[in-house]
């Protein structure tokens, strides 16, 4: 089980972002901290079976409760915590520490648990990072951005004749386009500082498909990033989300939208370059070497349980604390002030909870699991569907078999997964697979 606390505030809104983020003049950090702590405690309690259930104190609640097939190791282990946002690196290390203390108090937080903080280069100087490390953070994910969009500036250090680029080629014009508030130099410094403090556990985010970005510029940017990065890279294609400043500019024609074939080229180029540099392409957008996979995200793609804490956080878990045995999709109240009010009055700000049917759970498992290179294993499938095996659903004549014959999918002794080519077109495979699943 994992926990995802959300820090909803940013200093400035990026032009491409449609996340649930808020830019406010002053954050009452103590109040937000208290609420995060309180909600984490409430939800952790809810997500686990308590000793007193076994002791029979809830016997009166009736026989509808699920049989406890295996005795749970009590209290639950939280295997990873991921501080997301917003910009959680804007919170003080004290807040991070308080949440982690709450987790350790309400559940078992092993020393080797992965604790990741999403960070922004402008709020990650060495002293802050040291503070976060002291608070318990042991992995950092930094959103930097590399060169590629817009023509090179006259003073740009781009050298002709294919000379290797100096590592400082993170591009300021591009960062401005994206509305990021840090400069290229700051990003570089942040990564270097992070690597010093979290060696082998620093991830960087890269974005491609920016308006105006050329294939060559992307390849150069990628090389530059390789010179800078640690052992984990997340690679995102910029998606123009409705309601963002960037989408409005593209729609209005002031910025060009990159053609589909170019985006495909950029993606394939990146895969090839990163794999050649020793990275494992372990998920559609994620690459790691020396085993530095993100355990937190991996457990999400494996459809493990996770608890979302904070404004707008999503969760998927079985509220065993109230005797249920059904997995629920939960969303916390979006708006921070409203969320805080609810946490203060009732201990949590859960705005919606929907019980997921067995079919819906399998649909999610398939959609998420096939994003990884291991795919959906027989074992994992069996945990969600003990009666109907992966083989029984997809090993019979139908869409999945046709997709296997065409070379997009594999179903073998370990499970169902995408081929190298299939991974790049997963969204075209899923509707077919969902149709086949729904027939069972």
């Amino acid at each position, binding site marked *: 089980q994992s926990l995802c606390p959300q820090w909803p505030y940013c200093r400035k809104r990026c032009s491409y972002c449609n996340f649930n983020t808020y830019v406010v003049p002053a954050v009452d950090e103590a109040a937000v901290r208290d609420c995060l702590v309180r909600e984490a405690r409430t939800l952790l309690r809810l997500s686990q079976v308590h000793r007193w259930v076994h002791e029979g104190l809830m016997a009166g609640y009736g026989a509808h409760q699920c049989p406890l097939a295996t005795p749970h190791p009590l209290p639950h282990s939280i295997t990873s915590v991921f501080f997301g946002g917003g910009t959680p690196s804007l919170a003080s290390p004290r807040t991070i520490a308080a949440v982690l203390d709450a987790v350790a108090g309400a559940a078992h937080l092993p020393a080797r648990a992965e604790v990741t903080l999403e960070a922004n280069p402008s709020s990650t100087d060495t002293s802050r990072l040291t503070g976060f490390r002291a608070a318990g953070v042991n992995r950092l994910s930094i959103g930097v951005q590399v060169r590629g969009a817009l023509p090179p500036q006259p003073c740009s250090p781009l050298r002709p004749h294919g000379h290797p680029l100096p590592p400082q080629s993170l591009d300021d014009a591009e960062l401005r386009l994206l509305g990021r508030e840090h400069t290229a130099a700051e990003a570089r410094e942040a990564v270097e500082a992070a690597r010093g403090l979290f060696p082998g556990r620093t991830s960087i985010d890269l974005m491609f498909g920016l308006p105006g970005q050329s294939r060559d510029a992307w390849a150069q940017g990628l090389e530059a990033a390789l010179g800078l990065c640690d052992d984990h890279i997340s690679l995102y294609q910029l998606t123009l989300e409705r309601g963002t400043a960037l989408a409005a500019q593209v729609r209005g024609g002031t910025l060009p939208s990159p053609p589909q074939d170019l985006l495909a080229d950029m993606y394939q180029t990146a895969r090839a370059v990163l794999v050649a540099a020793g990275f494992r392409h372990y998920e559609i957008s994620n690459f790691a070497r020396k085993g530095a996979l993100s355990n937190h995200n991996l457990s999400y793609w494996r459809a493990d349980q996770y608890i979302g804490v904070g404004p707008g*956080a*999503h969760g998927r878990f079985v509220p065993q604390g109230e005797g249920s045995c059904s997995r629920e999709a939960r969303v916390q109240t979006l708006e921070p002030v409203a969320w805080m009010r609810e946490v203060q009055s009732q201990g949590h700000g859960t705005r919606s909870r929907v019980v997921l049917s067995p079919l819906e759970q399998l649909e999610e498992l398939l959609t998420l699991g096939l994003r990884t290179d291991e795919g959906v294993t027989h074992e994992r499938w069996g945990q969600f569907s003990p009666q109907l095996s992966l083989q029984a659903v997809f090993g019979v004549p139908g869409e999945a078999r046709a997709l296997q014959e065409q070379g997009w999918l594999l179903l073998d002794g370990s499970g169902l997964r995408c081929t190298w080519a299939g991974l790049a077109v997963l969204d075209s495979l899923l509707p077919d697979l969902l149709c086949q699943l729904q027939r069972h």
Partner: protein
Amino acid sequence: MALAGRTAAWWALLRSPGPAAAPLLLWAGLPAAGGRCYSSHGKEKLDMSTYPVESIRNFSIIAHVDHGKSTLADRLLEITGTISKTDRNKQVLDKLQVERERGITVKAQSASLFYNHEGTNYLLNLIDTPGHVDFSYEVSRSLSACQGVILVVDANEGIQAQTVANFYLAFEAQLSIIPVINKIDLKNADPERVEKQIEKLFDIPTDECIRISAKQGTNVEKVLQKVIEKIPPPQCNTADPLKALVFDSTFDHYRGVVANVALFGGEIAKGNKIVSAYTKKRYEVSEVGILTPNEQPTHKLYAGQVGYLIAGMKEVTEAQIGDTLFLYKQPVEPLPGFKSAKPMVFAGMYPVDQTEYNNLKSALERLTLNDSSVTVHRDSSLALGAGWRLGFLGLLHMEVFNQRLEQEYNMSVILTAPTVPYKAVLSSAKLIKEYGKDEITIINPAQFPDKLSVSEYLEPTVLGTIVTPHEYIGKIIALCQGRRAVQKDMLYIDENRVMLKYLFPLNEIVLDFYDALKSLSSGYASFDYEDAGYQAADLIKMDILLNGNPVEELSTIIHNDKAHAAGKLLCERLKEAIPRQLFEIAIQAAVGKKIIARETLKAYRKNVVAKCYGGDITRRMKLLKRQAESKKLMRKIGNVEVPRDAFIRVLKRETDK
């Protein structure tokens, strides 16, 4: 109850402002909201004997589309007190939702008006007619019940193609013609010019034209007076045996067929036994009445009058339009009747999902009850399953019919590419034996016989009339030549307006000629056509292939000279209409085994959402499930998935760009 309910429903429909959104049945059973509500229960029946033949006038309003026919009808209904005067009387006689939405009249309607002129009470029967060329057969049908017409011409636009066509229909039927120049309130109105056009083209003196504004009511009384003065009363006698012409019919779910009749002799009342001259079947009359425009029962109908009758006819085919009804054991010489409407455009219609076959079947049956001009043949295809081949009067008629299926019956269907009725003169003895004749009509491209077994193909032609401001002549002539048309006539109807006549192959105008003409003349040119027989033509069948598999919906019969251009265009449009897939798709146009055009739709190389963490998944699942659902509705050709509406979109768009 049912009767009252239905009348109330009509009343509600008539009174509702704007398009009547609710289907008829929704209103059934609701109490009427007060006001005038006619029903056959509890209401004093009208005595029609007070209107002898001399005080009856039967007339139609004819006009080019949008020249104000329906507005004039609204005013006439108001002046005579037939409907109360409100701002909301807009196209009162257009009862179908589609008519109000599109501003066109599809179905002829009639209304009886009562009007006192110089101390005499007159009964004026107005028979409204459709305004689009596709429905011109309805016009001629309506005229057969009239002795005169009001010919409405827009004071701004002047004589248009349909004005000409309608004038000749009335003229040939030897009807009195009252020329009316409408919309004189408009800023650019030029009634003098229009009067001169009327004089030049129709030989009607300028001083006979009445200048009116139907919208504002200006001079509309004068029109009524002219109707009484100029149009002769019907020539018939109540003392003669009954002779009733069925000039229209509608189907009512509760009472069966409601036949619109014009009495050319005798009288008719409830309880009379009548016989159809066409079917020889006998019926007992259960109700007679007039339309005001709602049905209003009367004691009797007398010679010269126009109204409706209900006589236990269960199917519309029993009330054959053009049929003559007479009293049992008092046979009369039947009236000449009409040629039945001739379908000009055929298309296959199939349910999107074969499990919907029976629902669609019953919807079609019910809709054709009220639109007998649609011909229906059962058809089936390997690819599309069981369906029908329908014949329509034109493309607008096809669209209207399809729209009514959707609006009134909630049906969505697959329509194949429309085709005109071609003919083939067979040379193969085997085929002649098979068909039992040496000339066949082809209404389905799938039945197109091979060149080797045919001595000649024939295509239908029409004589088209175009009226246009002269500055567009060059462009229009080029357009017509591009459509393989041959010029037959060209005449200046005034200093700057020209009337052109061309012989067109029907298939060249059926799809988009009208749109093309309108767009190159900024909307000023008008068009009408009439049947002109068949001519020999070099025809071929063109198939569209997706990765080698034919798309049945898009097979067309086409002139050899046009195949290349049409094939290329279709391929290009399909490329835009079909979404990219996991494999490359070859889109080809083929004649026999020969590929004449090709486009390639490249495969997806990447199609995946990059970022997928916590928050995204719910939204993401919704989208994926929607995609999975729509996949089930896709039409599969080989392994290519095509959205259901792709073919219609491909066919619909203008070709002349």
